[in-house]
């Protein structure tokens, strides 16, 4: 049913688009500021060192390396990472200056068009797994520095598998329709009523850091919904609400606490794990304190959703009773009986907004599979948690997750054993070890 609906809507979209709209949406003339002669593989000179250094910071802020390097590879930017999407795996390309397998033959303009407008060298549409809908906000100056840095990267000869999505997603032209619906083809416009720091934060969050890619919920076609940065499901994880919502967002955190989280990978209550641990390790820990402060100031200004927090479950609820038991046996050694954890080492659970979203996926995944805190220069310990899949049944995981979400003043919907069973199957984790 779903598939037919999607195909149907695609057809309607294709038929309905007006040529003018399409043209505007696909307009990449903003990229014509860039040179179209010099190819990436051409060597740099000493003069370019300053631009290369600035560009390195841009590449880190954009976290290009995260997707454009295969897991475990020691060849940065050589591609091969399979980005899993609901539509199939998309392979990130080799973006080193290798002429044959990388983008050594590209010009600066080709590069801008790909990064900011999702166009390949031949004008073909890229899949929006490449967050050009965010990078379109990146300024010409930052783009130039980024280009100079990418030219300085070691060329790696490495052919990346071709992305082969099933029909109809293999029709790259259909991305024109997608773009028309979901791609806001406009650069960053500062808001003069806000401070410079706020504008800098907005520029980084909307553009290079592409926070919305994970933290904004997607619609059926993978486009951003209007619930900007209010949290989204990533399959195995729930990327939490990072608006100022006091219950599920970062409304109760000070700007310093947000900065600490992005710098160290953890703060008084939260420890970055899963995909956010990678984002902190690869990207945010390296941002300047001013930039982190700017991001905090912008995020704090974002309104949350209008959802009211639920009432906490009563302590007499059967899941709460068994959950408390399971918690005291398995969790208190690190997270403490008062749920406060150990700052910057073992996540606090009491008043931790990330745990109180309707979507409990991250908690279920963490209990089942374990978790590893971000590793940073400032906090190299990387506190970690073991898997409990072998030890706890689906009912027990559901009960302890429900307990964590409703103890110590927390309040969130209960978790069902069914949800846990589905997640266990999806993560391919073993059943609870039978008692002998």
């Amino acid at each position, binding site marked *: 049913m779903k598939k037919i609906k999607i195909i149907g809507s695609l057809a309607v979209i294709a038929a309905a688009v007006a040529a003018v709209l399409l043209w505007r949406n696909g307009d990449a003339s903003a990229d014509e500021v860039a040179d179209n002669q010099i190819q990436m593989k051409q060597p740099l000179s000493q003069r370019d060192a300053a631009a290369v250094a600035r560009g390195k910071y841009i590449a880190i802020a954009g976290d290009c390396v995260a997707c454009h390097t295969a897991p475990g590879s020691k060849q940065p930017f050589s591609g091969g990472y399979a980005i899993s999407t609901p539509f199939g795996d998309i392979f990130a390309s080799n973006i080193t200056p290798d002429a044959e397998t990388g983008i050594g033959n590209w010009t600066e303009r080709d590069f801008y068009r790909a990064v900011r407008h999702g166009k390949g060298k031949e004008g073909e549409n890229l899949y929006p797994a490449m967050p050009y809908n965010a990078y379109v906000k990146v300024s010409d100056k930052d783009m130039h520095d980024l280009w100079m840095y990418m030219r300085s990267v070691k060329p790696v000869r490495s052919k990346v598998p071709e992305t082969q999505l099933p029909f109809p997603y293999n029709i790259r032209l259909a991305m024109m329709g997608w773009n028309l619906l979901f791609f806001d083809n406009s650069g960053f416009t500062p808001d003069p009523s806000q401070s410079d720091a706020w504008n800098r934060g907005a520029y980084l969050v909307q553009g290079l850091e592409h926070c919305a890619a994970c933290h904004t919920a997607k619609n059926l076609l993978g486009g951003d919904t209007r619930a900007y940065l209010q949290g989204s499901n990533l399959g195995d994880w729930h990327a939490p609400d990072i608006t100022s919502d006091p219950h599920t967002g970062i409304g109760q955190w000070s700007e310093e606490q947000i900065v600490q989280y992005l710098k160290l990978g953890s703060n008084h209550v939260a420890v970055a794990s899963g995909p956010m641990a990678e984002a902190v390790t690869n990207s945010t820990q390296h941002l300047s304190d001013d930039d982190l402060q700017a991001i905090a100031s912008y995020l704090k200004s974002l309104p949350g959703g209008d959802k009211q927090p639920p009432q906490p479950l009563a302590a007499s609820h059967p899941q709460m009773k068994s959950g408390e038991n399971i918690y005291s046996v398995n969790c208190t050694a*690190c997270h403490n009986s008062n749920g406060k954890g*150990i700052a910057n080492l073992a996540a606090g659970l009491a008043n931790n907004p990330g745990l109180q979203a309707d979507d409990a996926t991250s908690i279920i995944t963490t209990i089942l599979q374990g978790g*590893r805190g971000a590793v940073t220069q400032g906090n190299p*310990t990387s506190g*970690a948690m*073991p898997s409990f899949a072998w*030890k706890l049944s689906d009912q027990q995981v559901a009960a302890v997750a429900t307990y964590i979400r409703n103890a110590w003043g927390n309040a969130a919907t209960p978790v069902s054993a069914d949800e846990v069973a589905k997640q266990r199957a999806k993560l391919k984790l073993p059943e609870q070890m039978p008692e002998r």
Partner: protein
Amino acid sequence: MKNVRPKADVAIVGLGWCGSLIAEELTRAGLNVVAIERGPWFETATDFPPSVDTDELRWDTRRGMLLPPAVETSTFRNNSNQKALPTRDWNLNEMGYNVGGSGTHWAGMAWRFTPFDLEPYTQTVKRYGEKQITDGLILQDWGVTYDELEPFYDRFEKIAGVSGKAGRLNGETIPDGNPFEGNRSSEYPLPPLEGMRLTDIFRDATKAMGYHPFMVPAGQASRAYVNPLGVRMGPCTYCGYCLYYGCGNFSKSSPNACVIPALMQRENFTVLTESAVVRVNKAADGKTATGVTYIDRNNQEWEQPADIVVLSAFQMQNVRLLLLSKIGQPYNPITKTGVVGRAYSFQTVSGANLFFEDENLNQFIGAGALSQQIDDFNGDNFDHSELGFIGGAGILVVARGARPIGNADLLPPGTPRWGKDWKKAYTHAFQNATFIFGQGTSYSHEDYYLDLDPEYTDDYGLPLLRVTFDYNENDRRSAKFIEEKSVAIGKAMGAKTVVGTNSASGHYSPYNLASDHTIGGAVMGTDPKTSVLNRYQQSWDMHNLFVLGASSFPNNAGYNPTGTIGALSLWTAKAIIEQYLKNPGPLVKV
């Protein structure tokens, strides 16, 4: 074909406390360091999670983390007229077998030695004259004094996050601390652990006897802590699973919790795991080391060339590697010449087993170093004039947790070994049985030494280390003295039955696990005729070879060795960075 790795500035053999501490210093100084560890990588969260770690059978009874004797062991005899046989079962020679080494499974007593322990010869002769030294005893100064080592003890305690209470701070005596300790330049980084019923009884009894009890400095973080390397420790939960266990709470001072996380962030640091170094390679003239040869997990032989070689394996393995590599002159017990393998000793342990009538020791909680101790009879803290020995022991109780399997024999004399009465007695013992541990000094003797076994070999066909050892007269006298003191304290504590224990009352055996603090065999000192290393733990024979660990100790103190091992490693690191790198060569001229 020969497998050769790219040359490193420094090759480190063994990644325990010594290896990781010196690697941290040398990588921070910019050197390219490759550490080679025989055991596997261990991951705190997944290998030791608190939810599964409390498995006494696996980690304690079956020594899940130690180097199995089937891989490498030693042979043993009490004197050179006997034939040595291999120790085939778990024994007191407990060698670490993982990244973190013995620092992963130790109990955590994080001591400094006293000033006397590092200058035993000078101070003994000064106070008592040569006559105090029993026949054949090897007594020599270390070449480094307590005052020189103090800043490095201080640094080690801060890296390790040691919990304790100073007794001597900047010349002042502090109440409730150890008044006999060497002067400290700063307080411990963390306050002492909470006391338990056992430590309270001991404290009150010894105080009433006029002694000076104090909480033992513990490598268990009493609070959440961030060390100078930015590494975080969680507060100890008093779970009682320290000795033989890893700590999944990031609470026990260990290379894994305190140093390696920082080290792994450095691009100029590499660790090769499951790779056993079999020899140090020498330049053609034999005057410098060119690197090491190791065998990897696939049984492939590799060479790791390096400008500096650091041996930081277990004490016995350091000595064995020197002998296998033919570096330095092996000790000859007949002519009493040579140095490698000379001045080996152990630890003299005596004390008392205590059985109370109606106590509540609550042994379901504890910590590896949760102890009260008196040092009134340790080192040279008391007058030995009429006693006929030197040294003594730290006398302590330890609330270490119940060990339901391991303590099954700690029952009053006459208790049946099985059946209903045994069960009843053991149930009672859970709240009532404990012991006083006199952790003694030990001085080496010219009859006892380490060499290569002429017959038995390891998996690679290389000779095993042979231990020739027994307690000497000084050990026996001091052990008896400490046993008597311990029995008196046990009675004062109110125990119904007190049974003296004395490991030195019979012959030494590696199967009597009185302690596992073996020392010496490649000792530091002031004279190349009586030491393998100079005061910087630098080989007298090869200036680019440094040997770290308890193998450097000419004598053992009445303490656990780890704090001193750590301090000496940092002392050597500083000498390498500030002196050796500028002018590679012997740091001490003779």
